[in-house]
């Protein structure tokens, strides 16, 4: 829609897109500028919020479209690398979760938070989840780097 796939590249560490050219940086800067302009404008707070949500929804759709195109342009070798990296990230996630549950059981700590409660927002187990995502992203990146060098 607005952004071009040529401006972005698949991210090695983590998921999503990395910036490939100055146009990609300009695209992000324009989005940030528009959001800032909306919040700096003298309109009602509810209107600012609505405008921001609508704009960010459009940006998210554009981003998903770019990501779909960028990943579909990978050739067979690159796709194979991505799959192996995702698999390794999943293995690490499963291993880390098993280790976490075992540690929770050993220390009599509840491994499960209460669902449908706002208390969940302040639960320290969010850090476990964040740590898990970081670990998976790093595993994916390291796998891709090794595969690119060796294969």
């Amino acid at each position, binding site marked *: 829609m607005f952004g071009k796939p040529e401006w972005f590249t698949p991210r090695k560490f983590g998921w999503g897109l990395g910036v490939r050219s100055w146009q990609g940086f300009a695209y992000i800067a324009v989005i940030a500028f528009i959001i800032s302009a909306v919040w700096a404008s003298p309109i009602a707070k509810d209107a600012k919020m609505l405008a921001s949500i609508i704009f960010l929804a459009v940006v998210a759709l554009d981003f998903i479209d770019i990501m779909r195109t960028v990943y579909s342009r990978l*050739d*067979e*070798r*690159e796709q194979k690398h991505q799959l192996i990296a995702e698999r390794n990230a999943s293995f690490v996630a499963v291993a880390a979760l098993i280790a976490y549950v075992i540690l929770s059981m050993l220390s009599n700590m509840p491994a499960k938070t209460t669902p449908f409660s706002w208390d969940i927002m302040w639960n320290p187990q969010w850090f476990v989840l964040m740590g898990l995502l970081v670990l998976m992203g790093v595993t994916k990146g390291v796998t891709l780097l090794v595969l*690119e060098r*060796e*294969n």
Partner: protein
Amino acid sequence: MKNKLRELRARHRMTQDDLAKIAKVSRQTINAIENEKYDPSLPLAFSLARAFKCKIEDLFLQ
């Protein structure tokens, strides 16, 4: 898998980038095949053979 990709590419005066564009893969993939680090799929192997107008068995050796 051993192959004559580099030899044939030189004979046809093609760069890795030229061949990559014909085969619709990245230049890095062509480089990996030439260095015998990556074995291409059958459709890609056919595509490469077609680029040099030769048989697949003339391009890839056992």
